[in-house]
């Protein structure tokens, strides 16, 4: 091999080596892009729902009530029967089976929608009003184009008869897409069209709140102690080793801790965001202490010395000068820690926050789910209506994480002092 050939070979290998790096980075980026694309393409349709225009004649005779009904009488009105009569008029048929199929095009909750509307607008008595009634999940999926129409009827979720009604309604422009308010306000449900993340969002909110209240003060105080006051001895070393190791312990172990201690020994209520919050706080604590210490360390010693020189005590110099100067760093570390806690699922599974909860929780002591757990629960469900909801929940979750992380980055860049 001549000298030139050898040089050529070495340069070729140089190029190859460099390209491995580029390929690796591109692979990682491709994966992020794929994931985002998949979630966006699948989930965005869940923010709208299909609804059917239904003409309702609020005649007091049809409602089977008096001309000027009192509140009790309104409560007694059978809206199910009332709405049913109008639904059946949409596509008159005498076949009982076909009637059932027609009713199944509407959400199972239609009576509550009508009742709610009626109670909110009491002046509509004896008038004819056109209302948008939420369609069933199957019609919703059909309208969004997720169901194939040309496969045999027995493999379809929607029958030929229902297709016929759908086409007719479409022709009359009675089917439209509206904003899916249920997705943000409702709790979980077995029916995809009325299932929402309202309950799990509140559950997440409560557990993160509990987590913040417990972990932030303790983490800040612990960081102040270790960075400013702790003498260099074996005990301090032991605390530090503990904190570093706890930060790397798998999250599921904290779930076992919550189950074994909080639920079994202290008998706190299962499935609640209080227990979830405490468990998450124990997990987040070391992950907040570490950045808090780093930002305390970044405050130059001259600040402390200046305070001491004008007669402040050690505690005063720390409380009045060091901690306020380190605040941007500690706050952004806390927010990043909380963002991690928000996305955490495994420990919550073990303390029972996977329960099927229809009720929207009112306090941290009510059983609830959380956003990531909701993703887990819905992803196990085979129904087409839940697939888009799972992706949409991921979008909401990622949205919160992006907001929290951007606040953390912004807070640090805007308020942190650069010491030279």
């Amino acid at each position, binding site marked *: 091999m001549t000298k030139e050939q050898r040089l050529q070979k070495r340069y070729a290998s140089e190029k190859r080596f460099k390209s491995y790096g580029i390929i690796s*980075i591109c692979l990682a980026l491709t994966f992020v892009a794929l994931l985002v694309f998949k979630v966006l393409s699948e989930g965005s349709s869940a923010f709208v729902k299909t609804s059917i225009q239904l003409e309702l004649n609020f005649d007091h005779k049809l409602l089977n009530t008096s001309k000027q009904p009192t509140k009790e009488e309104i409560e007694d009105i059978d809206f199910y029967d009332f709405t049913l009569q109008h639904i059946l008029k949409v596509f008159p048929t005498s076949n009982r089976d076909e009637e059932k199929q027609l009713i199944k095009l509407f959400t199972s909750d239609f009576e509550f929608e009508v009742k709610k509307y009626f109670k909110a607008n009491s002046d509509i008595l004896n008038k004819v009003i056109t209302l948008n009634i939420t369609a069933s999940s199957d019609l919703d999926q059909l309208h969004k184009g997720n169901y194939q129409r040309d496969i045999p009827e027995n493999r379809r979720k929607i029958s030929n008869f229902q297709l016929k009604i759908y086409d007719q309604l479409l022709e009359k422009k009675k089917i439209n897409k509206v904003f899916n308010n249920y997705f943000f306000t409702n709790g979980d449900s077995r029916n995809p069209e009325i299932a929402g993340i309202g309950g799990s969002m509140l559950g997440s909110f409560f557990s993160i709140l509990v987590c913040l209240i417990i972990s932030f003060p303790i983490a800040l105080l612990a960081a102040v102690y270790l960075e400013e006051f702790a003498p260099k001895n074996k005990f301090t070393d032991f605390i530090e080793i503990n904190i570093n190791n706890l930060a790397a312990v798998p999250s599921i172990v904290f779930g076992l801790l919550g189950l074994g201690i909080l639920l079994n020994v202290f008998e706190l209520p299962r499935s609640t965001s209080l227990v979830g919050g405490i468990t998450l706080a124990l997990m987040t604590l070391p992950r907040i202490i570490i950045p808090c210490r780093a930002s305390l360390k970044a405050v130059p010693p001259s600040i402390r010395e200046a305070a001491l020189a004008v007669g402040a005590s050690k505690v005063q110099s720390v409380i009045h000068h060091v901690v306020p100067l380190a605040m941007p760093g500690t706050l952004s570390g806390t927010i990043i820690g909380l963002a991690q806690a928000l996305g955490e699922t495994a420990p919550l599974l073990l303390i029972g926050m996977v329960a099927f909860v229809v009720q929207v929780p009112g306090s941290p002591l009510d059983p609830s789910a959380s956003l990531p757990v909701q993703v887990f629960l819905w992803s196990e469900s085979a129904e087409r209506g839940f697939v888009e909801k799972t992706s949409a929940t991921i979008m909401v979750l990622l949205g919160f994480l992006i907001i929290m992380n951007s606040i953390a980055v912004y807070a640090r860049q805007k308020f942190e002092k650069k010491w030279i």
Partner: protein
Amino acid sequence: MVRPLPIVRNEKMNLLIIIFIIAFSVTCFFFGKSQIKKIASINQFKPKALPHFYGFYLSLWCALPALLIVLLWTIFEPFIVKYFIISSLEQTSSENSEQLNLTYQKIKSFYLGTFGGSAPDAIKIGAAKYASFISIAQNAKIVLILTTVIGFLLIAFKKIKNNIHAREGVELIFKIVLIVSSVIAILTTAGIIFSLLLESIKFFSQINFFDFLFGLEWSPQKAFVRDASVALTAEQSKELGKAFGAIPLFAGTGFIALIAMSVAVPIGLFSAIYLAEYASPMLRKFGKPVIEILAGIPTVVYGFFAALTVGPLIKGVGDTFGLEVSSESALAAGLVMGVMIIPFVSSLSDDVINAVPQSLREGSYALGATKSETIRQVVLPAALPGIIGSILLAVSRAIGETMIVVMAAGLAANLTINPLDSTTTITTQIVMILVGDQEFTSAKTQAAFALGLTLFAVTLILNFIALRVVNKYREKYD
């Protein structure tokens, strides 16, 4: 018999008490601050600290002991009430301790109004007793807290009158609070070890330790179908002892982690090298955070992606080549987990590579080496211990990862090395056993804690070694 309703629910009571204590101590702050001036002018002395320290002194001595009592009371009250109820039950019935415990739970749920169905009279009487205990406890608590608050207030006030060093007193309390906060990390570790050991010891009293560690068959459902009240025959207990062999789980965990590492190590390492050595400052500033986004995505999202996109994709590809692919293949879980771990490898390796001093590189260039030769033969060997440390950290991450494997890996404990087959992991089994109804006397439930203990021990050792290695070599050349 009518259930006597509690006057105020315990949680609300606590909240009220805490609000009272805080409000009172805030008042004490202003009281102390204004009083010290008066006292000083009457007694003709100069206060030894600024007025607000006297305020703090007073309010801290008011609030802290009382809050501590509330905390301890809330923690220990249930145990004490339980002890009294059970000892009163013991006098009248001949049940063993386990049944007594069950009766106690029934009484409690009847008292809280969550008892389903109609309760027998014994439970109703018990509930009445329980209610009376609770109301006695509640009254006692209020009295105790009032006396502590007022007692400590008087003591502190007397000390203020004697013109003590208020600032030193306040600072001492502050330091104690600091120490207590940092000890919580130790308490958490102790709590983890305690809760894991508590159930694991029960487990190992039924199942031989070596049968667990080296057994080849994992079928915990065998313990579940058994009626707990019937004693085991020798043959059954032998069979049960064989049902908890954790080798298939260890193998599955290791196998999936291996697949993950074979994705994460090359990609992570090469991107770290590229970003540290080749990339322009601009690209570096942009590329590093983008790769770290991968670490910020919740694992449940990866699990969703693995189960609903990657798994079916691999199955589809395998089917076209005529391979038999399980829909819950180890490959899908491993690949996605690998992607999740990339930033853990790349970010730490990047730090370590950057810590290699420039002089080493320049020496190599001076000898005529190309950039890649320098990296391969000089930079990487110098950074190797740190890189190994970061890989160890990533391995511990992979072993402890839960959601991806729960959603994408299988449940059956197969001992296999075929990546297209389904296999299970330690974390999957823990979740499967503990989600849903649990029978805490069953060996199956306790097995989850034994698995957790194993997981904790393994990750602790890995982390410990890795952290030491990384910290040692990160600054070695400075």
